[in-house]
């Protein structure tokens, strides 16, 4: 790897790495028995999300609660897609500005 990477080229490399990581679960799923892989592929994201929520509070969350949460989860997924869909460039930074800090100012 070159030592003089610019921020932009570094981010380009990093993005490639992230894309590779994102592909890992799919490859892993392909290695599982066919029926499990089929089940995972067929599971809707909302149901997977609900399964995770169930794990947050397994003692208290019943089926009726999960049914009530389904609409929230579906909205979160839709909102996620809409937020990701808005055109932004790499230079668009988030609102809170982080600043280095020293106790003595």
């Amino acid at each position, binding site marked *: 790897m070159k030592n003089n990477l610019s921020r932009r080229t570094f981010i380009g490399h990093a993005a490639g790495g992230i894309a590779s990581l994102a592909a890992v679960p799919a490859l892993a799923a392909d290695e599982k028995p066919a029926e499990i892989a089929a089940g995972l592929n067929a599971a809707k994201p909302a149901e997977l999300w609900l399964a*995770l929520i169930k794990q947050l509070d397994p003692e208290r969350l019943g089926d009726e609660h999960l049914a009530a949460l389904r609409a929230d989860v579906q909205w*979160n997924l839709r909102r*996620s897609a809409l937020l990701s869909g*808005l055109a932004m460039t790499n230079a668009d930074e*988030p609102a809170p500005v982080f600043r280095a800090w020293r106790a003595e100012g």
Partner: protein
Amino acid sequence: MALANDVAWMGVRELGTRLRGGEFTAVDLARFFLDRIEQKAKPLNAVVTVTAERALDEARQADEDLAAGRDRGPLHGIPYGAKDLLSTRGIATTWGAACFKQQVIDEDATVIRRLREAGAVLAAKLSMVELAGGLGYDQANASFTGPGLNPYDNSAWSGGSSSGPGSAVGAGAVPFAIGSETSGSIMTPAGYCGVTGLRPTYGRVSRHGAMALSWSMDKLGPLSRTADDCGLVLAAIAGHDPLDPSSSERAYAYTLDQQPPFRLATLKGIADHVQPEVKANYQRSLEVLRPFSTLSEVELPDLPYGMVAGTIIACEMAAAFEGLLADGGVWQMTAPEDRLGLHAALLIPAKDYINAQRIRVKIQQALDSLVAPYDALVAPTLASVAGPIDKPFSEYQRGFSTRELTPAGNVAGLPALTMPNGFGERGLPTGLKLIGRAFEENRLLAIARKYQQLTDWHRRRPF
């Protein structure tokens, strides 16, 4: 000394004049409003704690100071109420939630401290929607103190999440109150209860000692009888605070020097989906403004204000209150929907929060460009009057909307003011909203003062 009923409806400036004129003492005034709180505010579920002992101590101090020639300014000796998310030394601070009923944060919030230094008298901690509404409540009954009731009609909601501040000021039980707004929590109760409310610019007022719902969106501000009162209160509570890193270094002074003509802009289509009476009152308000203003029409840029606000609030709320899942506190929430509001929010992907904060920058820039040529944008405060307490909001408000004005202004951190402008369905108040450029509260206050000189909606009383 027994004070006349009219005292309950006087503004801060008039109360101060009469106090200094010897018509009554600060202790008389405190006793009078403590009684009003018991008689008028408690039946509206507007009160969590009456702080009688502290009020009488502060009032005695105010009288002693005045007698010694120490005048602390316009709020000297004036009673007020504070939304129960502001910490107060030695007094419970419940955040409206059953699981925090016994919580005592033994330090005065910066706002409470500044009001004490200005001579104001804390008379009550006022009710609020549990955790300031961050869990997604859809009904009036969302606080352990019961549903906030409207002083104009006890079967209607007071608005929230600053329910107690709205209905206590509306009922003449306190001359002013401090509320908080993350996205609508000052504008809504002030609008529904027929009082004047000011949402200051984000960072104008320190939140140290206030419950955090959303660190990057929470703001504190006054609800009172008039725009002039809001300015006097803002002057006392504004200013940088090292204990709140978000507080601005910009100094604030309330001045009366801004005069007409004002440059105003209405938003295209803003009244297309509001109740007929709201629309009629809005149009009549524009006719009041027209003789001393230029009125242009602009369009709200097409940006996902609601989605950005919703994502930011949900994620920050989830971080702030994650512990309620582990200790079971979330299951003690009054509104059933609030018991589930935390679960889904905890799993929102980090990239959604960051994308929302990135889009927020675009929203800030777009709205600043929109507002910069004007002194204020003008709109109906809310699309409808307050709904009945026994109906979900989603049912009563279905079909009514002021588009995305509430999340837009809040995401951008812009100041806004609401003032009463008439009555609508079931005799309930409607409001007129002004939205300004960041740190331009004085322009909004000047426009509102002029409007209130020409109208008497702010002087109407529910009883």
